[in-house]
């Protein structure tokens, strides 16, 4: 019966892998009887799925793409949900000596100077785009270095972290994935706190006028719950090892 009443949410692996959904969705389902089926894929793929009308709700973290999505009429409206941040992780011995720095761009510059291995997602995801912006800010041309110390893995956050840990290389990761990641093998957070590492998540209902199959009512109910005090509280109480992963911000930011 629950199978009758469900929505499909296109989201990113970083959100799903953190375990956030496992924490909040049962609360929502219990309350409304609506089952939420999360399909976690790359940001681009998630947006593409939503454009095709294969999802009812889009839940990703790349603001420019999200705004384009709404502007082109694929989505109804974007709502802020929560933020977390990116961190630069790297091997314990930190060959580029960036530990404790708070300027992410400077840190990357030092990595480039040290020609220490840096593992990039290289998959056009929100995280990847953020990383490229930081390199630009640092004035480093990573295209030149691709294949040498700069390694583009072309894969998801988890796979990239697996690669980084095996290579003992640096990487930019979202804190959620990092905290829930198990294969850290001698890696730790080296740089955090830069305001440029801010990572906002948005949620959008797929436009039912465009795709009549979209379960607009159920989708709206889900979005409403997410940004309601109850949903926000649920997000805020999700912790790993006592650490808060996502800061709810639906009420903080005004439109």
């Amino acid at each position: 019966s629950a199978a009758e009443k469900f929505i499909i949410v296109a989201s990113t692996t970083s959100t799903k892998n953190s375990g956030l959904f496992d924490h909040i969705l049962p609360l929502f389902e219990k309350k409304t009887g609506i089952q939420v089926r999360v399909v976690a894929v790359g940001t681009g793929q998630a947006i593409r799925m939503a454009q095709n009308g294969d999802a009812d709700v889009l839940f990703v973290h790349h603001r420019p793409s999200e705004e384009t999505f709404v502007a082109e009429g694929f989505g109804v409206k974007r709502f802020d949900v929560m933020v977390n941040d990116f961190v630069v992780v790297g091997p314990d011995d930190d060959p580029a000596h960036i530990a404790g720095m708070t300027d992410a761009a400077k840190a990357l510059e030092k990595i480039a100077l040290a020609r220490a291995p840096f593992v990039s997602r290289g998959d056009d995801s929100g995280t990847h785009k953020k990383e490229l912006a930081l390199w630009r800010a640092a004035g480093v041309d990573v295209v030149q270095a691709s294949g040498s110390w700069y390694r583009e893995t072309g894969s998801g956050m988890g796979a990239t972290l697996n690669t980084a840990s095996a290579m003992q290389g640096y990487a930019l990761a979202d804190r959620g994935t990092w905290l829930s990641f198990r294969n850290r093998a001698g890696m730790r957070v080296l740089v955090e706190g830069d305001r440029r590492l801010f990572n906002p998540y948005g949620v959008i209902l797929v436009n039912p006028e465009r795709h009549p199959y979209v379960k607009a009512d159920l989708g709206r109910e889900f979005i409403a719950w997410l940004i309601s005090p109850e949903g926000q509280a649920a997000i805020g109480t999700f912790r790993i090892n006592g650490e808060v992963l996502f800061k709810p911000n639906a009420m903080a930011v005004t439109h």
Partner: protein
Amino acid sequence: MTDFGSALGAALSLVVRLDPDLAEIVLLSLQVSVGAVFLATLIGMPLGAAVALFRFPGRTAIVVMLNALMGLPPVVVGLIVYLILSRAGPLGVLGLLFTPAAMIIAQVVLVTPIIAALTRQVVEDLWTEYEEQLRSLGAGPGRALTALLWDGRFTLLTAVLAGFGRASAEVGAVMIVGGNIDHVTRVMTTAIALEVSKGDLALALGLGIILIVLSTGINGAAFVLKEAAQRRHAG
């Protein structure tokens, strides 16, 4: 090597406490793979046998195509099935995307060429022995087809098992068309991929061990049934 130890531990603990999530995932995996192989056998065997037996223009091209399609990339198949089943696609109205049915469809596309190509080879080899006798008895390629599939059944089992191997191991296609949705379309391979991306390599390996044990069990059962049948129909 601690990983391998903890993988075994993870596998054992999952099995010993009869983890209900695991049971659900295993069951769905079996449903999808067995269903897909069943349908692929139904399509691929007659198809492969027909290509072996009938002579028609373009036959060579079809033989080469069948062999080549054994190497259909799962991700591409997943993508194509996705585009067809997508709401924006031609069969979107069926609403099959992100359901086990979609996963079965994708795997049928993947496995059918394998079973067909291997069947073609087996039947073609048998045909060199049987052709004149069967034609003399009045069996054209059509009638010969069933006779040869029957006479080659013990050899053809290996073709089916090769198809089953592909289906049960495959992750790229079912991931795209199933979406690896918890409790809905999560199967063993997508669960393993998820654990890898979470960095929980021991759990991933543990699930892998369970999957391999499962498929060994199925292969063992197939072998025992075959041996029994073969003993009855000796020769």
